[in-house]
């Protein structure tokens, strides 16, 4: 492992931050929703897609990013946004629907937009991919040495926008890296019922670009593959497609009974949970001590708690503000 220690530490600490964040949101999401669950009620209403288990995909990419790089993510965006360093206070406040949020409460958890770092997401499957191409086009045209990273689920790989985006990026040799988070399910539909082939990375050949499969839900494996793809993109060698086999530990959205996934499938995921295995490995390999791990965990907790406190104590927008910001 020729990975600089600070990258390993950063990945580990970011994983802690993501997981703790998702756990907190999961908890807070239930506030005001009992004894009767009502999706419209509580501190955080609406749909909530959490990414616990998918941290490695996000944190493995992060150490390779440079200022000005752009990311587009999906309906399940928190892990990616946190890894990229989107302002945690503003992001959390947005999820709480507060006026201090990234979108002043207008966007919500599926519509987090930030300019610095450049982050965007969408609730429409695969539709973040074309905008990533556009970011890449702008970088190329403006002579910026930046890359755009597009995250999407394996379910998205059967949507037309996937195909159009891959072809466009390959054709125009855009600095874009496409990262498919394959958690084997699109809501209840298993990949075997949606995708005619086993691995989306094999679809790269339809565009003449590199396609790489990462079979382990492991930050280091992602780090290595993403590093090479980002290097290529930054060097003007064009886009790449990466598929990472990852795990969605919880339901598709909060409140999902998750009855469509077998118990042993779910148990197997818990058994290999990277939030346990990755720090363990760093300790085993002597890169971190147990107490350093605990410190990282504590720091992560502290930042997330502060962000949640910021969100909680922020005011709601004024109702009439709904009418603002349709046009610039």
């Amino acid at each position, binding site marked *: 492992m020729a990975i600089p220690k600070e990258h390993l530490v950063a990945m580990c600490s970011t994983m802690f931050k993501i997981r703790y964040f998702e756990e907190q949101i999961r908890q807070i999401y239930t506030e005001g929703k009992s004894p*009767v*669950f*009502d*999706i*419209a*009620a509580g501190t955080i*209403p*609406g*749909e909530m897609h959490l990414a616990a288990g998918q941290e490695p995909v996000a944190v493995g990419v992060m150490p390779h990013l440079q200022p000005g790089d752009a990311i587009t993510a999906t309906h399940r965006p928190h892990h990616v946004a946190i890894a990229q360093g989107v302002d945690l206070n503003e992001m959390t406040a*947005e999820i709480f*629907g*507060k006026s201090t*949020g990234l*979108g002043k*409460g*207008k*966007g*919500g*958890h*599926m*519509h987090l937009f930030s300019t610095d770092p450049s982050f965007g997401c*969408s*609730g*429409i*499957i*695969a*539709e973040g991919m074309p905008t990533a191409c556009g970011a890449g086009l702008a970088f190329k045209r403006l002579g910026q040495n930046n890359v755009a990273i597009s995250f999407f689920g394996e*379910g*998205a790989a*059967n*949507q*037309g*926008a996937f195909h159009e985006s891959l072809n466009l990026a390959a054709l125009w040799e855009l600095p874009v890296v496409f990262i498919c988070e394959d958690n084997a399910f*699109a*809501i*209840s*539909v298993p990949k075997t*019922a*949606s*995708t005619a082939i086993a691995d989306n990375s094999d679809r790269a050949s339809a565009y003449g670009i590199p396609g790489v499969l990462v079979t382990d839900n492991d930050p280091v494996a992602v780090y290595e593959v993403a590093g090479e793809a980002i290097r290529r993109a930054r060097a003007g060698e064009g886009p790449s497609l990466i598929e990472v086999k990852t795990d969605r530990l919880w339901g598709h959205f909060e*409140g999902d009974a998750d*009855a*469509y996934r077998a118990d042993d499938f779910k148990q197997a995921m818990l058994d290999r949970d990277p939030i346990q295995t990755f720090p363990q490995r760093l300790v085993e390999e002597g890169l971190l001590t147990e107490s350093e791990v605990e410190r990282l965990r504590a720091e992560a907790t502290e930042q997330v708690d502060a962000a949640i406190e910021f969100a909680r104590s922020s005011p*709601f*927008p*004024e*109702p*009439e*503000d*709904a*009418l603002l910001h*349709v046009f610039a």
Partner: protein
Amino acid sequence: MTTLVERKLTTQKAIAEAIAQEMERDDRVLVMGEDIGVYGGIFGATEGLLDRFGPDRVIDTPISETGFIGAAVGAALHGLRPIAELMFVDFFGVCMDQIYNHMAKIHYFSGGAISVPMVLTTAVGGGYSDAGQHSQTLWGTFAHLPGMKVVIPSNPYDAKGLMISAIRDDNPVLYMFHKGVLGLGWMTHNPRATGSVPEEAYTVPLGEAAVAREGTDVTIATVGLSVHRALDAADLLAGDGISAEVLDLRTLVPLDKTALADSVRKTHRLLVVDEDYRSFGMTAEVAMTAIEEAFDHLDAAPARLAVPDVPIPYSRPLEQFVLPDPESIAASATSLIRG
């Protein structure tokens, strides 16, 4: 006063039952869409169907709306009577071509020689903080484009009868169910989402509005969950001495101009309420239709209340501000009457 114990169903169960009965009756009916199998549809419209009819007739699809809705069109052209589900209407942008240029136009292009007997079901509406890509109604968008019927049930009885009519119709029918009228356990409780539904199959004709509440002073015309809001508003108005008639349009295409005109001839005033965007949508069309059909009977210009022309915002106070509610409906009706 009836002594029969009437069977009560939620709108969601009424829809699922209608589909099941038609699948039972007609082997050519099948259902396709995302999460409509094991999951039973995100909003339960296909609950129980997989177990009963198996995976050949209850087909989970990839997230390929152009692909599977187009496949439904092709299957309809070749002897089947498919029901395809677009999970949220908000996603129409990825597959609209199949819907409006193919499903809706092939009959016309063929000079009437070929028909496209299919139903496209879709969930609409907001009010639960699902933000700007999961909360729209958009029925105005579809009703504007020729060649598809547009059905919007507001209660369990109609939901079943309209669904059976839709499936038996030889035309493409867009069946838009508002999440708020379904009676889902995980949505805000809505007593009007449960009601008496006969067990046997029956139809509610497409193109006939229903008077949801009789009144004499003002007609409130609307669809979907806003029918419930209007009924609540009518209660408020009654307390204020105003007798409001609530007209549930039930289908926008065909639009029941006769019922609209009849109601307006009685009340002489019209308020059109809509959960779709205000401009270039349902409110102006229904208001102008009333003007065209019954101008001389109107004592005032029709009024309209709809979502202002902004995307549906996420945060609760913002969203509640843009949606019509009983209070704003009652206020609009009052000012229409009292000036």
